[in-house]
């Protein structure tokens, strides 16, 4: 049984008033996520990401189409589904601000039908894993955003959900907090086979957490492939970073299919159009004609790839 199964799902917001037109936020999206997958569901602002997640978690009723999450229809079996999924909205809190997180966890444990001992054991384990146990007795309002988000993740994971929906989970976090958060999500996926469905505008979230990416734009899915395949299939370019022992002969590197992106003394950053010239050919030419001290070939940044995909019309 798939973890998530979506078929022709669509949502039109009615607009609320005679002057406001209905808005079609999601149009006939279809995809399947298998158990244990780590999927990034990305798109520009207003693409329909959050609306999709709200339908998949049962908050919103769709206008058309069907969806099954762990075999349940989210909007008609919302409470039953809630026991089996975890949802973390980066811009909303599920903790009680007046309470220390530990008391929020205790209450959430009861809401999810866990006994005290199990709740306490899980809180302790997750606290150790996140190195956050010392935060659990501080009132939520006194925590930094990164600290609070770690507590939010504990709250989300307390009932051991089988599918984790993360909507902009790292928004506002510092670099270290983001890194820890991503590591934890990947750990949960590997150790517990928790299916991860992530939306984020942070490309590093996509690169470090997801193995598959689904891109939605204008309410329609425009790309669905493995993250590793994304660069190759979308951009036909590679970057070469090279340091010469002395400046290139003639002062320039003028080859067909090669463009200088940046130069600084003997250091160059070059872009190769692999449709016009192979990487091997470029490397051979450089090594034969110039005195190369160091050279490396890298993929273009994922931001460029995603920007190219976003630019595609649905």
């Amino acid at each position, binding site marked *: 049984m798939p973890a998530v199964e979506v078929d022709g799902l669509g949502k039109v917001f009615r607009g609320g008033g005679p002057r406001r037109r209905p808005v079609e936020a999601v149009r006939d999206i279809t995809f399947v996520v298998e158990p244990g997958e780590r999927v990034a569901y990305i798109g520009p602002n207003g693409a329909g990401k959050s609306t999709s997640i709200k339908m998949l978690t049962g908050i919103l009723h769709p206008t058309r189409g069907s969806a099954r999450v762990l075999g349940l229809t989210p909007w008609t079996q919302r409470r039953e589904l*809630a026991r089996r999924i975890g949802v973390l909205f980066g811009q909303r809190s599920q903790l009680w601000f007046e309470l220390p997180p530990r008391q929020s966890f205790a209450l959430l444990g009861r*809401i999810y039908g866990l006994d*005290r001992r199990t709740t306490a054991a899980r809180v302790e384990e997750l606290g150790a894993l996140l190195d956050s146990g010392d935060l659990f007795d501080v009132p939520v309002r006194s925590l930094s955003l990164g600290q609070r988000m770690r507590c939010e993740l504990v709250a989300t994971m307390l009932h*051991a959900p089988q599918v984790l929906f993360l909507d902009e989970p790292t928004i506002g976090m510092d670099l270290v907090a983001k890194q820890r958060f991503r590591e934890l999500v990947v750990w949960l996926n590997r150790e*517990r086979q928790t299916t991860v469905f992530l939306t984020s505008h942070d490309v590093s979230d996509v690169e470090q957490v997801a193995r598959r990416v689904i891109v939605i734009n204008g309410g329609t899915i425009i790309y669905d492939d493995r993250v590793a395949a994304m660069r190759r299939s979308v951009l036909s370019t590679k970057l070469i970073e090279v340091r010469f022992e002395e400046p290139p002969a003639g002062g320039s590197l003028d080859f067909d299919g090669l463009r200088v992106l940046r130069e600084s003394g003997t250091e160059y950053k070059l872009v190769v159009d692999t449709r016009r010239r192979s990487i091997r050919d470029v490397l051979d030419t450089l090594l034969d004609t110039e005195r190369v001290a160091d050279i490396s070939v890298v993929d273009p940044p994922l931001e460029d790839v995603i920007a190219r995909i976003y630019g595609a019309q649905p």
Partner: protein
Amino acid sequence: MTGGVWGPSGAGTFRGAPVSAAAGGHTVSPYAAAFAAAAGRVLRRPGELAVRLLFYTVILVVFAALWSAAAAATGGHVAGYSAAALLWYVTVAEAAVVATKPRLIEDIGVDIGTGAVATEMLRPVSVLWLRLASELGEAAVRLAMALAIGTAFTWAVGGAPPARAGALLALPSAVLAVAANLAAQHAFAGAAFWLSDAKATWFLYQKLVFLLGGMLLPLQLFPAWLERVAWVLPFWTMAYAPARLTAGSPPQPWLLAAQAAWLVVLAGAAAVVFAAGERHLEVAGG
């Protein structure tokens, strides 16, 4: 980490039953837990509680003087109530109203209008009943404190409650009054699912409770037509009923049953509004 507390299969919760697998100890109803946690939250904000109780005490002092003067001017009684009975009336009626948050409808409306309620919809329990349990937990503490202070003050100023038999029913009646008030506020606030705002609803509701609920004066002091209107509406269950049981004569124990019936109606209305509202909810964006 071990897999013991995460389900029988350890790694691989997809194969296990993570929640039902939790064994040992006992579980408490989520609504009872929310009630208890909310009661604890009020005690954690002693400043807010103290300000509210101070405001309540000031009202009692003012009304003690007011009703004494009014009763003196009308031969010792106003509409069958002595000055002391009127003070007891205000003590209980005000305590029942002051126990609930003054802007609860507006707060609920903000949660609905901004989509914050979506987080609550992701829990495997009723959004409405959990909210009501939580509000009741907070209100129970405030009610107990207000009644304790009010009883001490009024007993000292005006003597024992004039209707002692009825006063025994005042405590359960006050609890029913608070519950009915909270249920009605949730039913009114549910309008925010369609209007995205509950400010206008809050303003209207507050005035209805103040006036037709008999919070400041007994319904018998109203003009006859207004008294008839007040009896038809549910607001008298939120202040008048426990106050009348404490201060009025003869005792009217049927008020308690009528309150319970109204509570069922109001809670049912709130449930219908929230169920329809949750189906209607439109929250775009993050």
